[in-house]
């Protein structure tokens, strides 16, 4: 920039070079050809500056090369500057220079690890914005959720995305693990990668669970209350149980302290851990070992197949553009889903004095709840005790075993999978193989565990094994206290048919259910609802007719709708029956108020 000296300056030699070149530039401005020369020089200089900037940012590639990269042209300079990036750029260190071709087949990974990372970043971004509006204080947290939904532009949308992303992340991380297990990719040399993966699974569950509490509604409060109540029984109960309960909840029950702890865990501790471990995981996967090849190709007897599988596929540009494309597609899918068909639930304000009828853990912990209700092991152990005399019941039948020790063992086992696998092969003295046909035992165990997981999750739902008195269940079916979240993620919640009919659909009146046993063909929706209620009530009456204990003898139902206030109706479901046991009042009443605007879909 400073070297032209065509026009010697008056005090030439004494002047600094910079001023000399300025002088000669000013000189150039006077003549036409001088101006042409100047223009050419500045263009060259400008290009130089731009090119230098791009080189600095891309850690080695000039403008021409970046352009070539995105056009799919071969690199312009030599040696290939696309590789330089991986030694010079900080962030590129966790990305590979190339993958082996077959390892990038979609049906080998299904992009699940990538999607895990993507959902994490979506959570981080939406979470940061939500943090602007959220107040981790027990008297204001719920109010801040209401504000986010009702007053912040894009607020509900952000919340929906954050929720969709959270559910998806748990799902995708889990499926990623299943994929890695099924393709045998955890085997040597990727054993420790698996271990970092299990740590990530635990962090993911922790992130999701800690976030669950923050809306501070009934759903949040009770799901976390039953979850942390397990911590209370960590053995020895008087020490570990006491301490872990105190640390998690910040007191005997969850209050301000507990909320703040979960909040800080959710926004600082766990995200930082996640970032660290995702970086390590990524480094190991994509830099250290590369993604595994499909077993059938890696272990193929045909050297040509093995060779072809290992052909290089450069990260720049093939993988990069592929990842960008998948980001665009996945973001579109998530944004579209959140915008058009999903709303994160917000139940009533948490209330420690009002336990919901059926409290459940979040879906990904239902299996633990299921173990507490388990229908097999306990009966078998009871049988052993009663008929054989070996009493294991006293050890097994405790929240400490079922809620803490067993889940801990399961996660320890998960950590140990690659090492146990190696041990097993060495024990039998056979070579390690990732092919399905050589892993019959491993795959059987895998599928059996998956089956048990789903089965126990089912046991964990209220569908199985718990039921309130029949009248209460009828009330719950039609007018649940809160909209009921299905045990499968991302499905809409169910607010009961009364709320679904809404203000307009509930004309004031006293309806004796008996009179609505059969609806005319073109009955109004309310009529159909009354018929359905009568069906449930009659069912109980029938049961009572056949049994001395079950059902509700001579059960009768009344449904009363009153105009209560402007735009507000009071709805009462009353069921009466003949009491047969002492303490039975013979009546049940459920009252709910329905406002014109309250829009429960």
């Amino acid at each position, binding site marked *: 920039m400073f070297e032209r000296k065509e026009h010697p300056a008056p005090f030439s030699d004494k002047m600094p070079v910079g001023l000399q070149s300025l002088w000669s530039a000013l000189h150039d401005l006077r003549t036409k050809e001088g101006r042409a020369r100047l223009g050419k020089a500045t263009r060259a200089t400008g290009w130089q500056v731009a090119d230098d900037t791009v080189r600095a940012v891309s850690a080695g590639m000039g403008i021409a090369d970046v352009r070539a990269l995105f056009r799919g042209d071969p690199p312009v300079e030599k040696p290939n500057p696309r590789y330089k990036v991986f030694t010079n750029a900080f962030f590129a260190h966790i990305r590979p220079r190339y993958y082996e071709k077959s390892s990038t087949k979609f049906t080998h990974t299904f992009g699940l690890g990538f999607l895990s990372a993507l959902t994490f970043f979506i959570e981080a971004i939406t979470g940061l914005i939500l943090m602007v509006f959220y107040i981790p204080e027990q008297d204001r947290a719920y109010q801040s959720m209401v504000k986010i939904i009702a007053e912040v532009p894009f607020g*509900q949308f952000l919340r929906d995305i954050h929720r969709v992303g959270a559910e998806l992340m748990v799902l995708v991380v889990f499926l990623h693990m299943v994929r890695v297990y099924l393709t045998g990719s955890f085997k040597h040399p990727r054993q420790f990668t698996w271990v970092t993966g299990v740590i990530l699974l635990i962090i993911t569950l922790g992130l999701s669970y800690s976030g669950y509490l923050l809306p501070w509604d009934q759903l949040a409060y009770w799901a976390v209350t039953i979850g942390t109540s397990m911590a209370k029984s960590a053995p020895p109960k008087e020490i570990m149980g006491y301490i872990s309960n105190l640390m998690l909840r910040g007191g005997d029950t969850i209050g301000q302290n507990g909320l703040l702890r979960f909040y800080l865990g959710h926004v600082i501790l766990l995200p930082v851990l996640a970032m660290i471990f995702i970086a390590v995981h990524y480094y190991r996967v994509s830099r250290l070992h590369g993604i595994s090849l499909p077993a059938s190709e890696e272990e193929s007897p045909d050297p040509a197949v093995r060779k072809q599988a290992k052909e290089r596929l450069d990260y720049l540009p093939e993988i990069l553009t592929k990842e960008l494309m998948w980001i665009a597609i996945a973001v579109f899918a998530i944004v579209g889903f959140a915008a058009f068909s999903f709303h994160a639930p917000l139940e009533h304000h948490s209330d420690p004095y009002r336990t919901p009828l059926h409290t459940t853990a979040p879906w990904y912990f239902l299996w633990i709840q299921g173990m507490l209700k388990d229908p097999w092991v306990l009966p078998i152990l009871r049988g052993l005790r009663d008929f054989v005399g070996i009493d294991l019941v006293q050890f097994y039948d405790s929240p400490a075993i079922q809620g803490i020790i067993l889940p801990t063992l399961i996660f320890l086992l998960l950590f140990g999978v690659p090492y146990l696998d190696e041990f097993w092969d060495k024990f039998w003295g056979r070579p390690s193989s990732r092919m399905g046909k050589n892993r019959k035992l491993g795959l059987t165990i895998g599928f059996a565990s998956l089956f048990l997981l789903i089965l126990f999750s089912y046991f964990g739902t209220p569908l199985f094994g718990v039921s309130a008195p029949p009248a209460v269940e009828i009330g719950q079916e039609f007018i649940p206290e809160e909209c009921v979240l299905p045990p499968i993620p991302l499905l809409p919640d169910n607010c009961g048919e009364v709320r679904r009919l809404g203000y307009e659909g509930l004309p004031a009146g006293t309806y004796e259910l008996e009179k609505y046993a059969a609806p005319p063909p073109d009955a109004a929706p309310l009529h159909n609802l009354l018929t359905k209620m009568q069906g449930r009530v009659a069912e109980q009456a029938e049961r009572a007719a056949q049994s001395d204990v079950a059902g509700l003898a001579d059960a009768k139902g009344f449904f009363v709708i009153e105009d209560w206030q402007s735009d507000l109706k009071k709805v009462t479901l009353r069921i009466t029956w003949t009491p047969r046991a002492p303490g039975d009042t013979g009546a049940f009443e459920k009252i709910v108020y329905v406002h014109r605007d*309250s829009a429960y879909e």
Partner: protein
Amino acid sequence: MSTQFKILIGIIFTLLTCVPLATIAVNDLGRDLGLLAPDEISGMERRAAALKGREIEVGADLYGQYCYGCHGKHGEGIPGVAPAINRKDLLDGRREKAIGWSGSVDAFLRNTIAAGRPVSSRPDLYAAKMPTWGNQYGGPMRPDQVDALVSFVLNWQAGALEVDAWSPPAAAVAAGPAPTRAPGTAPTPGAPGAFTQCVNIPAPYVGKKPAYRFDDKAILAAGKTIYDDKCAACHGANGRGDGPAAAALNPKPANLADKSFMQGLPVDCHFYLVSEGVKGSAMPPWKALGEDALWKVLIYERSFSGVQ
């Protein structure tokens, strides 16, 4: 797939993502962007209304649990117990102005409900005291519950009743029959047999007797608890009619320690008056406490004079 093809797909999906984003923008910012006619409402306004509606539902539920016993099922008030709160002047700000409250109506309601009125403003009109509800003042309710009650009470605004809950003592007489203070023959305390109401007591009360003995210590103790809580404010700790609230009353509460007065008040009539209240005075009906409790109070009251 060629690089350019992937980039093309990426761009297409990025553009497609703008569709849901634009939908949300219109939904949330429709009003600010000027896309809505005045009578249309935006998605965000609908959400705000839905949450408000749900809050009112919560308030209605709380009202049905905690308030209706004093303020009536529909906030119409219970004469002699507590004022109507489904009331035009309370909800349109006249009442607030009249007592010199310079804040908004909802702040007035929020503060009244949260703090209660530990000191009754008009014991002559209302025998009950507005309890403290907010947990910041030691009551049972969280702030969001108080907020929900405020929203519920405010929702009466449209059809609020035009009633005079706080008529000044003198004006009440001039205005004729007010709900709480029907003119009647005011008894002169102290004169035996002065209770005209005792002449014709309704049939169910005639000859009623307590199931307890008049000197049962446990009953007297139970009666005292109720008396101190509910009656002492007017009738005085020792039944002399000199409770802190009595000063404002006209007619004055009876002197229950006066032997000759009590002799003119047979047990059945006493029970009737306590149950149904004394017409033309501030004495409210206490039926709601239940017969058993009333008998205990009555026995305690009669212990002041010793007349059985």
